[in-house]
């Protein structure tokens, strides 16, 4: 075997060991993930051990001193079609929203927070952008969940945000 062969084998062996270590939660995984700045060590836990079991929905309402509007739904992505097995362009936004829901569960649900992380602010930006005419009103958003294909799906409240100021740095 050539020197190049040994180098390549060593590289693949190391890559494989790191991949195997990363599949198990723990300190070793955290350390590797910290060093893996290019995101090259894959995590293959598809739907494991707990899959996403709910559809999450995003609502907003406008608030001012005297009135509070009704909750309005923000549509995220499109429904799957018969060609989704080939073409499914909106899966990314659904995936990001689902990750945001998880982030909210970990950081904000049931907690009083006055400072918000960048992902929370992204969600807030999306909500603000989706509202056609705010008229200077403040905004509040809500996340609900259900299993939409059940016979009588009932939406339950997952998280209700505090009332945020109308102004967004992007739309100011």
């Amino acid at each position, binding site marked *: 075997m050539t020197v190049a062969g040994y180098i390549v084998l060593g590289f693949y062996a190391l890559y494989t060991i790191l*991949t195997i270590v990363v599949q198990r939660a723990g300190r070793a995984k955290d350390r590797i993930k910290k060093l893996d700045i290019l995101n090259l060590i894959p995590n*293959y836990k*598809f739907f494991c051990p707990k899959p*996403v079991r709910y559809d999450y929905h995003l609502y907003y309402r406008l608030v001012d001193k005297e009135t509070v509007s009704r909750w309005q739904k923000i549509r995220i992505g499109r429904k799957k079609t018969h060609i989704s*097995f080939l073409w499914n362009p909106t899966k*990314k936004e659904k995936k990001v929203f689902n990750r945001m829901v998880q982030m909210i569960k970990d950081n904000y649900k049931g907690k009083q927070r006055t400072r918000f992380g960048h992902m929370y602010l*992204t969600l807030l930006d999306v909500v603000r952008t989706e509202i056609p005419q705010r008229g200077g009103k403040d905004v509040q958003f809500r996340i609900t969940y259900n299993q939409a294909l059940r016979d009588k799906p009932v939406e339950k409240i997952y998280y209700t945000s505090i009332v945020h100021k109308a102004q967004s740095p992007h739309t100011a």
Partner: protein
Amino acid sequence: MNPGDTLRLILSILSLSLIISSAESFTGIKIYKTAGWLSWDRLKYDRPMFRHRMVAPLLNWLFPHPKILILITSRLICSVWLLVAVLVNWNYTALIISLTIINILFSLRNAFSNNGADQLTNVILIAAVVASISAGNEAIVVYSLFFIALQTSIAYFTSGINKVNRNWLNGVYLKDVLSTAMFGNPMVLRKFRKMRHAFWSCSLLMILGELLLAFCMFFPSTMSVYILAGGFFFHLTVAYIMGFNTFLFTFLSTYPAIYFVSAHGIRF
């Protein structure tokens, strides 16, 4: 099939996945805009690396909308070019290196929305780069094929073994997943509900199938063909029901490597 042809087959299927995914990024470009779901204005705070003085100028130039279109366009062009190159047997070494760099950058940009298929794509591309730059050294191409097969086996094994818990085995999780509009399909759900043991038997079949696919490369090639055919059917079903289109092509692209290892083993 020789190692070079196997690698070309892998890349031709993978390029289909990359073409579809790049074209999807074009149509869903609004998520990259300021105040979009993947706005760089916010995402740049996701990791300290994004703000490192060595890379921040490049990322802050390339990653916001509309300049992200440069990355998406290059990815699409390189993927189409790769497909043509492997089909007509052109030298694609420079092309595969460019595509790999572009894809890693794109994965970095989408760090918050990447899925298993995106990660496996990077792994395959890295192995293809190693194989391509060592043109003429057939042993290295064989190692690369073995590596791709091994990574796919780890993927299937991780996914299968982590499903060995009560709620997956009794079908509760499968029923829950199929009851969501995001991952389910009303017609399939209706049919499953009519059958008494559909959820747990399908769940069990899926787990066994994933574990079987994990060890497929160790079976004789006459058997591995049938296991891989089952894997193709599994991914096609998942893609149809759940809409995981890129998983279909990305995982399918690794099957020639699995078959190659199964047929030849690894020769030092």
